[in-house]
């Protein structure tokens, strides 16, 4: 009975995966405001804010870097992603299939799935720091790459197993819990930070700025951490969701928007999650540093518990879990799209096991800033490919949607743009020491230029071959 009901429910879901979203199914502005605010207040926020503190950013560098970087992120959503989404009204994957062909899209899906696994792994590790509180678990340090105790592995395995089991059962209940938890989580972040301000010496709003400079964002990195500046913060805030806006992953979301201007609704996510929550979690971590005499232990669970009691610890668990769960589910779907005959629950189980194994390594949390930047950088070139294909190629007399138009399964122009952009980024990083946070911008221009030139050459030879 229950099985039939579930089956009926699943069969009634039509996500218009291979056709434009019909006008009657478009959604209003409110849907996007809520979705962006909820999606960008998650477990990662408990790590990113503190890591800015650990990297010694100054108060002005943080506040203004986030202000500008988040604005650029919102503009990227609104001016790059949303206009294509509302004109084509197709998912990212279907657009990629039309442009790149099924084989290259499969490669993209595998890479995407792996990135999802690591992202979910970091969130499981974050949740494990809260689960371990009652057991007095030895928490990992900022310099830890490998698991530091058997207890840590057990905590991660428990959280990972539960998360995977829930993900195997489907997405709807997780999404429901995430929606319920979202406004509460935002308030826990804000409340925890406000409550500890007096202990840092903030007695009124007027002396917040001086305390912020002296005790919170001091401009001095912790031992072993690199120095962050305004530019690091700005580029990180802009590019941490690069895969979503410039990389066009949110075509799948914004294709439901009535107007392209709804792309500006991403501002709720950026300025609630990536501004207020990052500042709040940084404040909590600075109190921990102050009280622990600048210990290098790094565990969001105990930090939140110190500031907000059980509600704080629960917030870390819920935030980590509600991020990890859909991410594992999405990774499973990305892999399953390669071979649709694979059972969803089996793929999700394998993905969950990989994710849990990855979560045992604290490096995933300690190097989250680098990982998130890498995630955006790796997937970004396909966004440049879509943009050039959509706007520029038709104006230069070339055809859009190469794979569909010419009946190809692998678009060498798109593959070249992807590969050469990554090689260019590696060279800039290794040979010239350009940090990963700054590679996205030049990388985008390389991807766009390579795709443009390669497309012209490949289409010319394809047309010549056809006429012969």
């Amino acid at each position: 009975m229950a099985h039939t009901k579930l089956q009926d429910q699943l069969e009634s879901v039509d996500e218009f995966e291979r056709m434009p979203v019909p006008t009657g199914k478009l959604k209003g502005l409110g849907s996007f405001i809520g979705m962006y605010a909820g999606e960008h207040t998650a477990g990662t926020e408990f790590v990113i804010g503190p890591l800015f503190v650990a990297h010694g950013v100054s108060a002005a560098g943080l506040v203004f870097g986030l202000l500008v970087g988040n604005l650029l992120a919102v503009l990227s959503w609104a001016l790059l992603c949303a206009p294509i989404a509302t004109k084509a009204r197709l998912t990212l994957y279907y657009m990629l299939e039309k442009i790149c062909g099924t084989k290259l899209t499969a490669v993209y899906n595998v890479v995407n799935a792996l990135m999802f696994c690591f992202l979910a792994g970091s969130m499981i590790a974050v949740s494990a720091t809260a689960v371990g509180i009652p057991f007095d678990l030895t928490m990992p340090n900022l310099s830890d790459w490998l698991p530091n105790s058997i207890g840590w592995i057990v905590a991660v395995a428990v959280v990972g197993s539960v998360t995977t089991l829930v993900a195997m059962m489907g997405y709807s209940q997780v999404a429901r819990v995430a929606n319920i938890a979202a406004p509460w989580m935002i308030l826990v972040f804000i409340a925890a930070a406000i409550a500890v301000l007096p202990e840092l010496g903030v007695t009124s709003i007027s002396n917040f700025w001086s305390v912020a400079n002296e005790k919170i964002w001091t401009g001095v990195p912790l031992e072993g951490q690199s120095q962050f500046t305004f530019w690091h913060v700005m580029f990180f805030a802009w590019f941490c969701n690069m895969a979503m806006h410039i990389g066009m992953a949110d075509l799948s979301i914004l294709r439901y928007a009535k107007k392209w201007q709804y792309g500006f609704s991403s501002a709720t996510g950026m300025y609630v999650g990536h501004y207020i929550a990052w500042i709040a979690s940084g404040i909590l971590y600075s109190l921990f540093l102050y009280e622990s005499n600048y210990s290098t232990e790094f565990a969001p669970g105990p930090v939140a518990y110190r500031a907000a009691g059980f509600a704080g610890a629960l917030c870390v668990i819920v935030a980590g879990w509600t991020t990890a769960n859909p991410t594992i589910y999405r990774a499973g779907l990305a892999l399953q799209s390669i071979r649709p005959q694979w059972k969803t629950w089996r793929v999700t189980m394998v993905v969950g096991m990989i994710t849990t194994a990855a979560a045992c390594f604290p490096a995933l949390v300690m190097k989250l800033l680098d990982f998130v930047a890498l995630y955006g950088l790796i997937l970004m070139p396909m966004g440049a490919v879509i943009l050039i294909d959509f706007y520029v190629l038709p104006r230069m007399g070339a055809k859009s949607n190469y794979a569909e138009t010419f009946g190809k399964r692998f678009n060498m122009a798109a593959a070249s743009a992807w590969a050469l952009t990554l090689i260019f980024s590696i060279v800039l990083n290794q040979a010239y020491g350009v940090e990963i946070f700054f590679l996205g911008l030049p990388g985008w221009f390389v991807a766009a230029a390579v795709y443009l030139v390669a497309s012209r050459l490949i289409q010319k030879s394809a047309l010549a071959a056809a006429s012969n």
Partner: protein
Amino acid sequence: MPKSILNILSWLGLVLTLLPSVLVFIGAIDFPLHKTLMLVGTVLWFATRPLTLAKEPN
């Protein structure tokens, strides 16, 4: 329970999550009370919000 009451209780849950921290900041309550009130707010929110959502049209 009527939806209006459930709505009031869930909003009260959110108020209890945030307001105690402001009271700590201005020195009106002590820190342990703030943690307890936050927990009460959390329980109230998670106990009532799913019920209010269930009564809303999809």
